[in-house]
């Protein structure tokens, strides 16, 4: 029985951040030099990446005869060179949204099961297996997707087309293997499942016991405890976990490149084969591109870089805001 109350705890001494002066000892100097050097090196690397991307992107964009944002074509070797990211942006965003819609509810369900339902003997190995999913190389996912998932999804595609074709999204207007944005979305969902699950699980395990007991003492069932205490506490954690997953889905390269049959079409019929994503397009075209083509691909990489930066920034904002409403007594 805990008898310590908050009244018994002496206030923590204010954190002093004064940096002790170097006393001239050699170890201190070497360590200071190393850590300062690493910090500066990181900034230099970041700056040179940004400069490199921007400069090469500028070179490419000044040669481009089409509108970079709205053109549905990628032909930097043509005369005149015309290329745009409309298809890539569309494909990247749509496939990531599909992945999120599928993965987040499943991940939250698994995380809740591990943290609140599964007996301890089962929870630890299960958590381990989920984390193991993250260790599979993405090219392996890609090969599995192309050889196993694509043929297996044909039946599902037919079924979706037949019963949900009226939603427009699931209407399949072109015949062909299921090398579609929808399949890519499913594959990405599997790939981001581990990160979303493990971050959510951590948050759910942090729910203060007294918040859960508050619900239990009112006569809440296990699901009601989750609804009253766990999910409100974990909501922002789920959001930031999803953002981390989204960041990975946006940048995934090999798995997408292996599964998708690329085409420069924008279609909301997500079952139709074709489409493209930034990373997939770069991987597919970089090897055979001429100098201008490479710069054009780098320009598209810059857009992906900014997109991922925005997503991660949003995730960080949400995590920071979490502190405010983490609870009265937490």
């Amino acid at each position, binding site marked *: *029985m*805990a*008898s310590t*109350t*908050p*009244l018994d705890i002496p206030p923590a001494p204010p954190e002093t951040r004064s940096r002790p002066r170097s006393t001239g000892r050699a170890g201190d100097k070497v360590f200071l030099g190393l850590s300062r050097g690493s910090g500066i090196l990181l900034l230099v690397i970041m700056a040179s990446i940004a400069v490199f991307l921007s400069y090469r992107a500028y070179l490419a964009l000044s040669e481009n005869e089409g509108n970079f944002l709205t053109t549905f074509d990628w032909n930097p070797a043509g005369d005149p060179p015309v290329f745009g990211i409309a298809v890539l942006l569309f494909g990247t965003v749509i496939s990531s949204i599909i992945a999120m819609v599928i993965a987040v509810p499943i991940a939250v369900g698994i995380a809740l099961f591990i943290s609140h339902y599964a007996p*301890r003997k089962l929870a630890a190995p299960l958590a381990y297996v989920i984390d193991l999913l993250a260790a599979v190389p993405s090219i392996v996912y890609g090969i599995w997707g192309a050889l196993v998932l694509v043929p297996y999804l044909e039946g599902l595609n037919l079924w979706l087309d037949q019963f949900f074709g009226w939603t427009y999204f699931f209407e399949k207007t072109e015949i062909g293997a299921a090398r579609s944005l929808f399949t890519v979305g499913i594959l990405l969902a599997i790939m981001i499942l581990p990160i979303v699950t493990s971050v959510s699980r951590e948050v759910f395990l942090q729910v*203060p016991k*007294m*918040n859960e*007991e*508050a*619900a*239990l*003492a*009112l*006569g*809440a*069932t296990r699901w*009601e405890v989750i609804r*009253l*205490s766990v999910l*409100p*506490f974990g*909501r922002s954690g789920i959001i930031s976990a999803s953002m981390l997953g989204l960041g990975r889905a946006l940048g995934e390269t090999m798995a997408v490149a292996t599964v998708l049959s690329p085409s420069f079409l924008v279609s909301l019929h997500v079952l139709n084969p074709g489409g493209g994503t930034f990373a997939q397009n770069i991987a597919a075209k970089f090897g055979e591109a001429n100098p201008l083509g490479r710069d054009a691909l780098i320009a598209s990489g810059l857009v992906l870089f900014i997109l991922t930066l925005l997503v991660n920034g949003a995730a960080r904002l949400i995590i920071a805001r979490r502190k405010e*409403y*983490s*609870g*009265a*007594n*937490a």
Partner: protein
Amino acid sequence: MAKRIDIGGLNAYYGSHKAIEDISMTVEPRSVTAFIGPSGCGKSTFLRTLNRMHEVTPGGRVEGKVLLDDEDLYGPGVDPVTVRRTVGMVFQRPNPFPTMSIFDNVAAGLRLNGSYRKNELSDIVEKSLKGANLWNEVKDRLNKPGSGLSGGQQQRLCIARAIAVEPDVLLMDEPCSALDPISTLAIEDLIGELKERFTIVIVTHNMQQAARVSDRTAFFNLSAVGKPGRLIEIDDTERIFSNPSVQATEDYISGRFG
């Protein structure tokens, strides 16, 4: 409706460790019964067996009988969720639902139990907040989060939440130990009012508090470190504090303990 609690031969365990042993007592309806005793003697554990919260702790296990007006809470087929809906609990530290408004906090238990009309719900919320002596302080900000209140107000909010569902019994586990003296006084006054309607059991480390608020007092102790806690005696509070029948009780109360 206040109910009598009859406890017979109760043992509680954490895994293989026996925390309390062979406790039998009767808790009278419409009265306040205080549990006192040194830290680790099992009084909170015992309290938590009375609404089947003990078994929520991993490894928690209970043997024995707890009769609530002749109905055994540990009988076969009794759902612990139902038990907790009739035996309310207030904890050591105020624990309102942090993301919920004051109104929703009080209404939370009602919404679990069934569907109410909107005006019905706000009537009960008002009545409960008045019952917890909190209404005047929060009536203008019912939609503000409950976590914005002071510690003492939060604890009264938790009491309002507990009494909103009209339990038979109200268990309080050191409800004032995290509060300042003025808030403590407010809660003690409230306990005096609530005992008209509920059976109240309170665990406290503060012997003056036990003397002030309770009608009967039970003293718990353990014979040695690592041994299970036992009930030493239970009697009218007045008698326990003036003329206890067991020497250990007198030693503890007069500070000659240990």
